[in-house]
């Protein structure tokens, strides 16, 4: 079995087909940008894109993603045209969003999927879409500013 992660084909050993995508990414592919927070789909720290749609990798099994393009935070910049970081990553830096930073890969993956689907979300849509991503440091206000910044730039 093979899966595609950030455009790379990865062969999955037989005994790892039923582990979570999160564990597979972190402990087999050694892509550690995707984080463990709760393991039950409640915090969003493990968010990745499956065919461009935000999904919780702790609630996804490797066998679920056979015909799916998996994108992690490490591959996000490849999904935007041009050199350099993805516009959402750039906005995150410009607004100085992160505090401890641990939740931020998940926040950025959720926000970039939202903006991909809906380039000009309303304040209410931002709140609703981002509600599944916990940030204990309390960066929500800055996250809203960063998302709004991207929306205004396009």
């Amino acid at each position: 079995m093979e899966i595609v992660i950030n455009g790379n084909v990865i062969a999955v050993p037989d005994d790892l087909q039923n582990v979570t995508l999160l564990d597979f990414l972190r402990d087999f592919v050694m892509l550690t940008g995707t984080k463990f927070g709760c393991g039950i789909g409640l915090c969003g720290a493990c968010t990745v894109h499956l065919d461009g749609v935000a999904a919780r990798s702790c609630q996804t099994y490797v066998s679920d993603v056979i015909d799916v393009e998996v994108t992690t935070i490490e591959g996000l910049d490849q999904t935007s045209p041009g050199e350099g970081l993805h516009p959402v990553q750039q906005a995150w830096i410009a607004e100085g969003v992160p505090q401890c930073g641990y939740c931020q890969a998940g926040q950025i993956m959720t926000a970039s999927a939202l903006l991909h689907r809906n380039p000009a979300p309303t304040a209410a849509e931002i709140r609703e879409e981002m509600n599944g991503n916990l940030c204990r440091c309390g960066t929500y206000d800055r996250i809203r500013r960063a998302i709004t910044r991207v929306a205004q730039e396009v």
Partner: protein
Amino acid sequence: METTTKMKSISRRRFLKKTGWMAAGITVASFVAFPVVRDKIPALPTFDAPSDKDGLTWIQILAEGRVRFYCPRMEMGQGAALGLTQVVAEELNIEQTDIECILPDTNQTPPFQMTVGSQSIANFFDPVSWAAAQLREVLRAGAAEKTGLSTDQIMDGRSGFKLPGGTTIGYAALVPATDVIITDNRLIENDNLKRYALRPTTKHQTIGQNWLHHDLTAIVTGRMAYARDISLPDMAFGAVVLPPSFGARFVAANSTGAMELPGVLGVEFDEAAGFVGVVANTPFILPKALDVLNVEWQIESDFGQEQIDALLDVERLRAEDDFTHTLDQSGDFEIGQQSARHRSSGRYDTPFAAHAAIEPRSGLVWVRADKVEVWCGTQDPFFVQKRMAKILNREAEDVVVHTHRIGGGFGGRVMCQASEAAARLSAKFNLPVRVQWDRAAEFQNNYFQPGFSHFIDAGVSKDGFITHWDHDAVSSSILTGLAPGLIGKAIDLATPDQGTTRGIRPPYEMTNKRIRHSAIRTPVPINAWRGLGSAPNAFAIESMMDELAFKSGIDPLQFRLKNLPANRVRLAEVLRKVGDMSNWGQATLEDTGRGLACAVYKDETAVAVVADLTIDHAAETIKVTKVCCAQDCGLVLNPHQVESQIMGNITWGCSMTLNEQITFAQGRVEQDNFHLYEPLRHGSSPEVNVALLAPPGTPPAPVGESALPPVPAAIANAVFAATGHRCRRLPIRYEDIFAETG
């Protein structure tokens, strides 16, 4: 916990040599002894505040003229490293690209104070600025020597100096080929040392700028290495079975099933330590291995919430008139009571709380014959170093702790229990071993914020002045919360806990007052949580202030200003400011309310907040829509970072007020994940509006927790404004307010 400090002289030169600290370049070093504390007594957190000379081992000029700053503060999002980097840059006339900031491992600097209590900027500003200024002057002397000029002909330039006639000389040209340690006799007397960080803010070059944190790019690209992200080539993967309840004793386990699983390398029991762990060559088998271990525990305690509540019951203590410490007493509050035109009394309770940082802790440890290496995220690497040495029966200097950015600290990351487990397993199996906690372990095996129970009786004269203030409080000791049994009890009798009582003395003028406090230990492990006692104490005080204002028919803002003593100018200023920002006094709509509260954190940082909220009957929720905050924390090194901290504290404050509560049943914590303990989510987070003010020339004051204390009371006061319902118990839940009315 004032334990004797053992002073041991180690010359800086010896330290620097021994640890291989010196890169090619110039290091300023001082032969003053620095304390290596408490190496024979039980491992304790590192309390000692730094002295100026400690700063000298933190800053170094590298051969190419760049500056390296070993930041003596652990990074967990508070951004102290960045602010202190700006101080170094200010003194050395360099820009952000000229300086690298490193979180030091334990072998890269002498021990420094643990990163807690918002002390980073307040305590470290001075030593860092002093040391950087010394280094600059050493370089200036070097330039003088090299050019044959006198030092006063050598003017400051960017990353170097300007010479008469317009030529420049960069720091790089002043670094000799071999390492140089500059010793005490080259240091400049304090009176003659120019400190650029201390000049008026208008003259500052880098202080006060919004430098962005040097880790941002790594964070947003997923390349920042937190402790959980570290691996070594041949490491093994460990997991532990944690006790099912507080104090449970390990009895037996069956390792046969686990040993038969593919990849399992071994199982380790240590009855005395209550330790059960398994090691495998793959992480994927661990859940199953833990499952089949069948550990048998002897339950030592099955206490529940009622027992804890009964212990921490202020009314019981009042009935018995039995408080250990009178923290403050003046006048005669009985006379005050008689002169009161309006009186109010009430009991205020706040629950136990968890840190709930998003990163569950993790440790990677490699125990070898000559050296022990630990990779972890901790607020006190030197404590972890001592703990490791103790568990492994080694010398502390054999242990190196590699520090990593922490995925949220909030006081919960002084201990590093996962690393301790990894150390036991690594010692046994002779491999580097990684142990990671999951969410349930994180919720149930750390220490907690204790519950608080307050009773306040107070009154107001016909002129609107406070006539008396009778405040009794009970909680558990925080700073000494982990001291064992009898020692803990003895400490509680001897002295009131500085953490639990933080902020319990109101900033207002009150002639007749009595403030009493008792600390009672429960079976629940207690230690630091954001702001310690400051938020629970301010909740009681500032709720009562609102009640008094309401009863006497005075606007809450005016009532506070009226009752502040003349020396509380800075608090009065932030109160007025937050009034302006929020249009205080304007009418509110139905089902909305606004509340005000203020506090002075650690007697240094003055903060006032106004919270706006909406009662959403359809969703049956209380939603804080907007919070305005005015803060005076003295000199601000980086306004963006300070504003971020304020936003974080306000979010935290909304969360503790509306959502958070740890409860106990059968000797264990009932909450094990975010569905049962849910920090405030994005959809419920308020818009935050911040103003920073400070009189000129004031030194930096604490920031990391300062905006938290007034938030819960501001929200409770807003709930009263919206509903007429006085909430004296946290968390405040919609159903508790509208229970009877439906």
